[in-house]
């Protein structure tokens, strides 16, 4: 069944690539990047399927056990745009083009100075060719990095000026996962890319698990009363767990300027004592929104106001 689906997927991917993408790359003199384009096309196709699955699974879930109900949903529609831009690969591609040269330069510099990243396979020989073990360790390490990046987003005023856009959604649904300031996307991608350069990247054969990870991240923003149970809540980030991170007065305004920073594994919140398993299903947003602060409803207004806040943060205002 899965083999059959993969076969159909590959046939379509190859057909689109040979009919539309490769001829363009050839005429533009970009054949050296044909493999990357082929992969990018695959990712975009996966993105479309992902969005279909998100809608098919989480729409009914949100209808079944909603935390909140709204009459006007314009705010949610903007999040839909963010999601499409991300999953179709428009944003990832732009960020990749922006980062590929500096990251490559950094890699060359490290090599020239004799700094060679230790592979997990070098440190733990037993893991050599044990793919699942190596993959899980990479996933945990990258999640660890994302945990600290996320803490930085809340701790540093200039970074919060950008990240607050993600938190300004008071109508939080599964679409909200990709709602970020573009500059914030660039910075977090750069941080993760550098981390990946140092600790390595998990094996490409696990893209299904990586997609599952993205599904968990979308689910964690769903407008749904869903908890994974006592043990499950501690193993994987749930809608209940991440809602506490977005909750007014509990999340950013709480101790450590936030709780429940983890992206996939609550383990890191438990280890660094930032976990909050108590909070129930509170309203989401940022406290100053209650006093009328505007974070924008439409895409461009949100991006612009983010830059305005960033500028103000450098002058010492919060």
């Amino acid at each position, binding site marked *: 069944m899965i083999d059959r689906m993969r076969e159909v997927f590959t046939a379509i991917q190859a057909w689109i690539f040979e009919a539309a993408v490769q001829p363009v790359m050839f005429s533009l003199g970009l054949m050296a990047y*044909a*493999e990357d384009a082929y992969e990018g096309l695959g990712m975009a196709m996966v993105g479309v399927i992902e969005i279909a699955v998100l809608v098919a699974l989480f729409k009914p879930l949100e209808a079944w056990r909603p935390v909140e109900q709204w009459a006007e949903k314009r705010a949610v529609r903007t999040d839909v745009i963010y999601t499409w831009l991300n999953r179709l690969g428009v944003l990832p591609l732009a960020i990749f083009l922006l980062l590929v040269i500096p990251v*490559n330069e950094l890699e060359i510099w490290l*090599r020239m100075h004799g700094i*060679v990243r230790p592979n997990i396979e070098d440190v733990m020989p037993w893991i050599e060719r044990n793919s699942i073990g190596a993959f899980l360790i990479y996933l945990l390490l990258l999640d660890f990095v994302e945990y600290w990046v996320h803490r930085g987003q809340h701790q540093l005023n200039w970074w919060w000026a950008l990240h607050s856009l993600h938190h300004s959604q008071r109508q939080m649904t599964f679409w909200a996962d990709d709602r970020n300031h573009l500059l914030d996307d660039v910075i977090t991608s750069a941080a993760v890319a550098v981390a990946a350069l140092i600790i390595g990247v998990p094996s*490409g054969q696990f893209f299904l698990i990586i997609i599952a990870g993205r599904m968990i991240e979308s689910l964690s923003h769903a407008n749904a009363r869903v908890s994974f149970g006592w043990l499950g809540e501690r193993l994987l980030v749930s809608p209940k767990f991440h809602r506490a991170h977005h909750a007014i007065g509990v999340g950013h305004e709480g101790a450590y300027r936030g709780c429940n920073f983890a992206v996939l594994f609550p383990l890191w919140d438990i280890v660094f004592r930032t976990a909050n398993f108590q909070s129930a299903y509170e309203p989401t947003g940022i406290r100053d929104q209650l006093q009328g602060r505007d974070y924008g409803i439409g895409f461009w207004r949100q991006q612009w106001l983010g830059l305005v806040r960033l500028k103000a943060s450098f002058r010492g205002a919060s």
Partner: protein
Amino acid sequence: MFNKIKYLRNFAVIALLAVANVWAQQAQQGVAFVLNSNDDTMSLIDTRTYKEISRERVGREPHHVMLTPDGKSLIVGSVQSHDLMFYDPVTGKFQKRIDKIIDPYQLAFSHDRKWFVTAALALDRVDIYSADDYKLVKRIVTRSGPSHLVFSTDNRHVFVTLQHTNNIAIIDLIDQKLVATVPVGKQPAGIWITPDDKHVLVGVMGEDFVAVVDWRARKVVQRIRTGAGAHNFIPMGDRKRILVTNRAANTVSIIDMDTFKVLETFRVPGGPDCMELTADGKELWVTSRWIQKVTVIDMDTKKIKTQIPVGRSPHGIFFNHHAPRF
């Protein structure tokens, strides 16, 4: 009674040995290695049944394979995990791993077995290792995108395509330095040398020809039109003909290395990349990257004999009973 058991046991042992022997001989004829560069795996395929026997994890992002000069190991180079993995070229059994080999995109041994050279496509350098112990001897910075490499017959020079900067680099192995770059056309990829040592052939992927370089004069002397996306080579073992894949045109061309004429061009679908030809010249195995298959061509009819599904973005391919490489 005791004797009878002993006799039976001996008989069983002999029978087993005979079976094992036959099996070993068949295995010798029998395993093709295919690197799935985006899955980090290697497919082992039975060349008689055309069935995938197993799929094993190798390093991260493997691209090319190379046989050691003693023929005892097949090396898989992986660019993301910066390592070489060694396998038995007949059975596919894992032997060992060498780490800290930086970005070994393409790899080759000099004919005198002295040097092991790698082209680092992502990091813009060519690394020269001692072939005995794989210790780095010299690192040569090149212009962007060193991709494929080949040695001159006397082992004095190594020629490297520079995929992002449209040149080939000529490196002197005695002085261990870059001596020249020769412009050849957009995005040069595969490279080979003619048996008379006079010309270097370059698959010019961004265009539709193979460039013939008089490497001593350091210039392109002829362009052989083969098809869009001319890519990689494999000689046919008769010191005369060589095959080239045309990636965008989805074809393979046969070139006469004496006259530099295209003898024949035939269809191979799915973005043909690396090739392997059986010693009897009857079957051509090609990795079809975009459709994630190995395409087997019947060389009598030039038609597709079968296609074998493998992993994502299949690239390097090898089997032991291949046509001689000159």
